[in-house]
């Protein structure tokens, strides 16, 4: 059913969510994302990830990423128009702040993380009960995929930077399409556009311009447990985001353009552009574990 395409293009690159920023004990953080990607072969991808973070202690935080996705490929002489929709694999991971330097109005942190992708999606979606849909339209990997990495960042009231590297080890499923393991690195730098000068009192809203680069390297794909040759890929993208932050929420809008896309096969699907919108909300979780009176 058409050219097999690797996983990397379908996995949109959000503004670096794997951050080392602190999450307070018993704090909940919810981030709603909307991402769209346009590619060659009339590809359209829409994703609605919801990221949830919870502060277990001052150093431990746990995260879960739930995702719904839609993808469609245009018709060609070799195939009809194809599409799929559904829940993608869910990511859960824990993060531990192993090193931090806190100073007035700035912080530097390093935090390793580990978890797994849980197979909530489907890696064996078929076209009308026939052949498998291309990999880019599959919504899962079919296996529990170990996931680990490290994130770090420096932030202050005028600028900041962040970087992370993660590895998703995808075991081979006996049935369906198994995407190859994925190595990913993100780098980000941000500057504060507003306020240029902090007010003497109070907490101002902030407007931040963020530039981000995303590097992804995919290993070989397997189909029904058999290696699919010429299925690796390397992608480098860059993104620009504008973010408005307040005490309780943050909203951001961004655009993505690929810098480099290297695949084994020349007719591989390639991303052309992407757009992002996100809303992040902070709230207190029930604090029965730590509630106390100082009276």
């Amino acid at each position, binding site marked *: 059913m058409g050219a097999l395409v690797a996983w990397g293009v379908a996995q949109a690159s959000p503004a670096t969510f794997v951050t080392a920023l*602190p999450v307070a*004990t018993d704090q909940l953080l919810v981030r709603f994302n909307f991402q769209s990607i346009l590619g060659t072969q009339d590809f359209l991808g829409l994703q609605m990830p919801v990221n949830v973070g919870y502060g277990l202690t001052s150093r431990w935080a746990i995260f879960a990423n739930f995702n719904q996705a839609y993808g469609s490929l245009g018709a060609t002489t070799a195939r009809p128009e194809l599409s799929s929709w559904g829940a993608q694999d869910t990511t859960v991971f824990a993060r531990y702040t192993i090193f931090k330097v806190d100073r007035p109005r700035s912080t530097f942190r390093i935090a390793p993380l580990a978890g797994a992708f849980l197979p909530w999606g489907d890696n064996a979606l078929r076209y009308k009960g026939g052949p498998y849909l291309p990999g880019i339209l599959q919504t899962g990997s079919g296996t529990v995929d170990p996931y680990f990495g490290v994130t770090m960042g420096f932030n202050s009231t005028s600028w900041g930077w962040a970087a992370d590297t993660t590895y998703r080890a995808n075991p081979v499923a006996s049935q369906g399409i198994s995407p190859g393991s994925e190595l990913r690195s993100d780098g980000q730098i941000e500057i504060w556009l507003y306020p240029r000068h902090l007010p003497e009192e109070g907490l101002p809203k*902030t407007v931040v311009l963020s530039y981000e680069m995303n590097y992804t390297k995919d290993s070989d794909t397997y189909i029904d447990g058999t290696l699919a040759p010429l299925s690796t890929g390397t992608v480098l993208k860059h993104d620009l985001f504008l973010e408005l*932050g307040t005490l309780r929420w943050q909203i951001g809008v961004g655009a993505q353009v690929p810098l480099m896309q290297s695949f084994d096969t020349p007719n591989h699907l390639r991303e052309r552009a992407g757009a992002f919108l996100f809303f992040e909300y*902070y709230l207190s979780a029930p604090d029965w574990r730590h509630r106390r009176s*100082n009276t």
Partner: protein
Amino acid sequence: MSAAGRMALVLLVALAVRTAAGEEVWRTRAVAKLYGVYSPRGFFNIVVRLKCLESAEWVKLDLKRAQITVDFEPGEEVSKEDLARVQHEAGYRPGPVELFRVTGETVDHSAPGWMRLKSPPPKKTAQRVRMARRQRG
């Protein structure tokens, strides 16, 4: 009652009233320097933990000074360790904390940055009503 007696009674009542008026309600005010907090999101981390201090009633968030000012419910005591724990549990290295007692005129929550942490629980409200009744005599 003689004129002198009436005069003495008036003076005693006046003295009693002044004494009652002079017993102004005091609050504990804590000023904590923050380390590592650089954004509104960081201040929210602090606010989340402050809400767990039951008597914390008002907080003033100052980004430029990198500090918070916390006013507690009238008559409530807190320790520096309480404020240090708030910062630690919010994920930050605790900064220095200073404690003061403030009274009526110095308690103004209308300046930029002040926010009320929560409505007082019913038990505290009842305490406050009893305290107000005692002050009214």
